[in-house]
């Protein structure tokens, strides 16, 4: 595939608002999980709650969209100058030429949960002022972003459970490729709600302590919430030539998507779907497995997910450094793919491989090169895995532009006359 530029990106999760806070947490190996005290959830588990979300209402002209999910989205995309970058892209290309692709699993369903507590005792009706389309419906997340930035291009929400925030990159890539749009606002946003807390509780997948991905004693997930966004633009000009950006620029090099075709809530035991997704990401990026310097694992910390993912990783990679950052952020579900794509971009920008925190004894049976300490290294290509409920898998491959620039220079030397 033609590489795409991540011209801007940002992330907000329980480890902090924006890139500086996120980076400081990753560098300092600090997490943001706390004992669950969310709403009426009386569950023995830990959560990754973003502080102060409800203190920031949505912009006054968009108050129909008022709900925790959209507040979190807005808190997220107003960090790091991201909103300014979107406005600039709209100015550069026109409102109709910027697409919106947002991943979410539950959107603002919390608003409906709260409304069900306030039903009319006689008629059972929901309270006046409840806005289904702008809060509960999955499209509310994309609609809010589109309205906030006054965009007029194509838009959709992707809701494929925990791969949602990664798969948005695939849909955006295809639409950029057709030429229907010139830029894409991609992201993922999911917020805490009782549906997911009690839902994962029903599957006995919640850990009673901060989750420990890939640990021999891992015992389940910690649910988190997050908003991650990126602005995607073409890296190639109209003739298909790679327009070499500065060396530190971050590129989306490859994408792999697959289905497990196995079970609704358990991964394929051999990690076959996960393996297909990673293979395809490498193939579409034209990158060999040995070139990948770091893998941000899906790593939910359930016994079965981490076992299946390790089999898939070992089938393709030999000792590649890897970690799951969910020990720090919790599993942010439909936002995880976007949050971890931003973390992958940060690892490339900062040349920093983040440790998987909370984990002290990597499971010897999983036999991965699991990072227990963050380290500074030379890294040019990283892979980020997102696998979801219902057996939906997506792997994203990112690289620094200096790698692609160097390959193009070599190509020009060995094949003079071929376009770059």
């Amino acid at each position, binding site marked *: 595939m033609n590489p795409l530029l991540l011209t801007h990106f940002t992330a907000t999760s329980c480890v902090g608002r924006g890139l500086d806070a996120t980076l400081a947490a990753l560098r300092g190996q600090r997490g943001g999980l706390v004992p669950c005290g969310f709403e*009426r*959830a*009386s569950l023995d588990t830990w959560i990754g709650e973003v502080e102060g979300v409800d203190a920031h209402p949505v912009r006054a002209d968009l108050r129909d969209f008022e709900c925790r999910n959209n507040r979190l989205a807005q808190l997220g995309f107003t960090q790091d100058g991201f909103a300014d970058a979107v406005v600039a892209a709209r100015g550069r290309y026109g409102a*109709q030429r910027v697409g919106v692709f947002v991943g979410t*699993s539950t959107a603002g369903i919390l608003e*409906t*949960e709260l*409304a*069900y*507590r306030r*039903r009319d005792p006689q*008629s*059972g009706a*929901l309270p006046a002022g*409840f806005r*289904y*389309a702008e809060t509960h*419906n*999955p*499209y509310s997340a*994309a*609609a809010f972003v*589109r309205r906030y930035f006054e965009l*007029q*291009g*194509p*838009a*959709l*929400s*992707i*809701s*494929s*459970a925990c791969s949602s925030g990664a798969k948005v990159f695939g*849909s955006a890539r*295809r*639409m950029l*490729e*057709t*030429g*229907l749009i010139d830029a894409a606002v991609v992201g993922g946003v999911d917020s805490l709600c*009782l*549906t997911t807390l*009690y*839902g*994962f509780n*029903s*599957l006995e997948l919640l850990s009673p302590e901060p989750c420990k991905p890939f640990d021999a004693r891992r015992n389940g997930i910690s649910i988190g919430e997050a908003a991650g966004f990126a602005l995607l633009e073409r890296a190639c000009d109209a003739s298909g030539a790679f327009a070499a950006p500065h060396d530190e620029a971050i590129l989306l090099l490859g994408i792999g*998507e*697959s*289905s*497990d*075709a196995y*079970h*609704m*809530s358990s991964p394929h035991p051999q990690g*076959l779907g996960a393996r297909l997704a990673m293979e395809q990401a490498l193939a579409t990026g034209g990158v060999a497995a040995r070139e990948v310097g770091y893998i941000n694992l899906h790593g939910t910390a359930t016994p079965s997910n981490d076992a299946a993912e390790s089999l898939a990783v070992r089938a393709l990679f030999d000792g590649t450094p890897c970690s799951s950052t969910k020990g720090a952020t919790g599993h942010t579900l439909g936002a995880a793919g976007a949050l971890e794509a931003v973390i992958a971009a940060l690892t490339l920008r900062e040349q920093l491989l983040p440790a998987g925190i909370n984990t002290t004894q990597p499971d010897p049976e999983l036999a991965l090169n699991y990072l227990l300490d963050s380290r500074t290294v030379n890294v040019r290509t990283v892979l980020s895995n997102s696998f979801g*409920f*219902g*057996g*939906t898998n997506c792997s994203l491959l990112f690289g620094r532009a200096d790698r692609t620039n160097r390959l193009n220079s070599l190509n020009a030397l060995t094949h003079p006359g071929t376009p770059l």
Partner: protein
Amino acid sequence: MIPLTAFIESVGVLGPGLNHWSDAAAVLAGRAPYVPARTVIPAPASLPPAERRRTGASVKLALAVGHEAVAMSRRDVTTLATVFAASGSDGQNCHVICETLAGEDRKLSPTRFHNSVHNAPAGYWSIATRAMAPSNVLCAYDGSFAAGLLESLCQVAVDRVPTLLIAFDTDYPAPMRDVRPVPDAFGVALVLVPEASAGTLARLDARLTDAPCTTLAAPGFEQLRAANPAARALPLLEALAAGRSSSVVLDYLQDVQLHVDIAISNDSGEFKS
């Protein structure tokens, strides 16, 4: 820049008074009378009994129209990428979850939870068909069909893969029905491929437009189109049923719609536009 072109090989449809494409096409083309009746959704025979028992209306509907389209196309189902487009998920299931969570004992059943995800139909489809091909699951509220068609056209045009689009929406019970009134279930599936073949029904060429969307002359069909997000496909289905090359504008977002030129394949496999 890649044109948004694809070839339709087959259609599956299920809605109020519309069962199977062959019957629905006759009704839409005016060759048979339209007799409105509640949508009857069959149990998915393709799922193992344990899974079949757990599925709700939206899963059954998606599988029914998907299987119909795949059978008509004669393609190997495992080779088809899928796009699932729906505004809502299983409304009944969602209602029971919200009711439970509003009460004192907030325990959910695992089945309730895994049926609540928007990609439950996609998950069950891949289990039923053993298809490991990529599957996308999206929503654009009332514009979900157009969003799904646009995504499918991008897959066909850019990735050159055969793609199965399944769009569906079912009704919510009260009190959700008051805020999202979808009177009855409607589902539609299309097999879209990058190259014409002997089985091609029509060629589609799409682009974005700000022109108003196409409405239907027959009041019954227009009512249906406006009432269910998946039924926003009806102008396209009507053109296919009539076997007449034409153009339609499908309802997408408030300020951008999807214009589709439909060129029907003639007996010699050529396309009139």
